[in-house]
């Protein structure tokens, strides 16, 4: 099925193309266009990649290569909110893995998997080490998390969602 961008996304892409004129092509906009395609179509299906390729006059193979390099792009459907739980060294030293496991239990899925509402990601350092262990969900940071806090966090996110697509 051929996909399209909304008028808003098309306007955003057109404006961005003006910011990289020295490139001589629309290629520098590919990350932004992929973020937009993921926002509007939920994940980057083959058709979504074709849409980006067509919009920016790029080979499909190039767009595929870029989309599969960066960890925030997903090729499969996933929950609307992404919990990025850090387990890197500063968080690990203060119980990050226990918190990740608590999230797994609470959501009933393993790291890397998704429920309808939440994608659970074991994230590398999110640059909030002073508050370890920590997680980021869209624009919202959770600090000094204890395993017992995860129920409260999930409830809070259900009541006041922070999908990453909000930022795009």
């Amino acid at each position, binding site marked *: 099925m051929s996909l399209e961008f909304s008028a808003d996304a098309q306007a955003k892409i057109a404006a961005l193309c003006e910011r*990289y004129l020295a490139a001589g092509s629309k290629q520098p906009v*590919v990350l932004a266009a992929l973020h937009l395609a993921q926002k509007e179509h939920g994940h980057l299906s083959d058709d979504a990649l074709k849409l980006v390729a067509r919009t920016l006059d790029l080979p499909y193979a190039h767009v595929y290569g870029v989309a599969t390099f*960066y960890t925030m792009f997903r090729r499969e459907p996933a929950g609307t909110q992404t919990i990025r739980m850090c387990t890197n*060294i*500063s968080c690990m030293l203060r119980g990050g893995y226990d918190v990740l496991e608590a999230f797994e239990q609470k959501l009933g899925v393993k790291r890397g998997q998704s429920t309808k509402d939440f994608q659970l990601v074991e*994230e590398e350092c999110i*640059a*909030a080490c*002073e508050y370890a262990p920590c997680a980021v969900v869209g624009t*919202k940071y959770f600090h000094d998390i204890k395993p017992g806090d995860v129920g409260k966090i999930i409830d809070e996110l259900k009541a006041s969602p922070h999908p990453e697509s909000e930022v795009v």
Partner: protein
Amino acid sequence: MPADMTTKIVTARFGNDAARTIAGYEKTGGYSVLRKALAMKPEDIQNEVKASNLRGRGGAGFATGVKWGFVPKDAKQVHLVCNADESEPGTCKDRLLVFWDPHLLIEGMIIAAHALKAVHNYIYIRGEMMREYLVLEAAVKEAYGKGYLGKNILGTGIEVQLTVHRGAGAYICGEETALLNSLEGMRGQPRLKPPFPAVKGLFGNPTIVNNVETLMNVPAIIEKGGAWFNELGMGRSGGTRIVCVSGHVAKPGVFELPMGITFRKIIDEVCGGVPNGRKVKAVIPGGVSMPPLDDSELDVPCEFDALQTDERIKPVMVRPGQQFDLGGGRMLRSMAGSGGIVVLDDQADIPKATWRIMKFFAHESCGQCTPCREGTGWLEKVARRVADGNGKSTDLELLASIAHGIAGNTICALGDAAAWPMLGFLTKFRADFEAKIKKAAA
């Protein structure tokens, strides 16, 4: 006069929510230095920055003024790119700097762009920093609205454009040439150097890539002079130093401190020491890429040159009796890196911590160079079985040999960044690894 514990250059507005808006920033003196800078000749700004001994705060500690000086004089088009892709584990300063004081970064960038005669400039911000991306976008928009950015800034005839570019999740994009490839819309794989970006960078044009904290120091240097900034520091390192302290300390945090402060002082006096009556076992001095220090090495200042040359820091070994060679017989002690200090107490599981660091590098290797792509994967696997108590008697030699095979043999420094801590932990905490292996054999 050297900086003291109260000297704040880049963290002065921390905690001041109003300063995030352009009105609040201007109220605290913001954008006043810009007017002064725009009246200066680009060469004079460059000379002040050279005199300041400002060194890159992203990790390498290279002299910023010298880097700027590498741009060819006859360049037709130059770009300035701010590296806000902070993702070195243990480092959490740039995210806060952007969040609390986005206009200081923008003002620093406009001054630097003027000094470099750079028109089209970019901030590359890490994809996961979504809150900070929105803060920056709003601040850039405000700066355009006030005429600080645009075709003819403040009526001076000088054009400075600034675009915020979001990444999408890849540690390697903090490496400056990978960052440029990512900005150009490609996979974030590093480029072979030379040519260096200052000669051939973004879109083939001379490009300066500077860290957030580095650029945020520029307004103060232009306001008070390079000599003043230089005197704040120590040796060949001007200014203050932000450290991010995490792990086993009573009060973790991000602190702007005098350049010459020792690790012991940071841990004991600034961060309230190690809690639960425990002692320091290991300290990662500047992000996980840097070889660790042990408790006997903590009286060294947290300064770029000291960490590389102070003889109180033991050299990293490949194996007992064989010193690691950085090239030309130069030994590796440690480096100041990104300022990310991680403290591990005497109950910490050193092999497990080492495994977690190796897992990180295996995950983040871009896959371009064989020694790194394959080697980091093997480091992770072998370190894991040692940490899990399933190590073999030959595993420490195997880890050393893999790490040694990666170091120096890759296009970018990610390979070294994995090899150095592996060898560093083996050098200084060998007994911890041996104890796990002995247990496995029993």
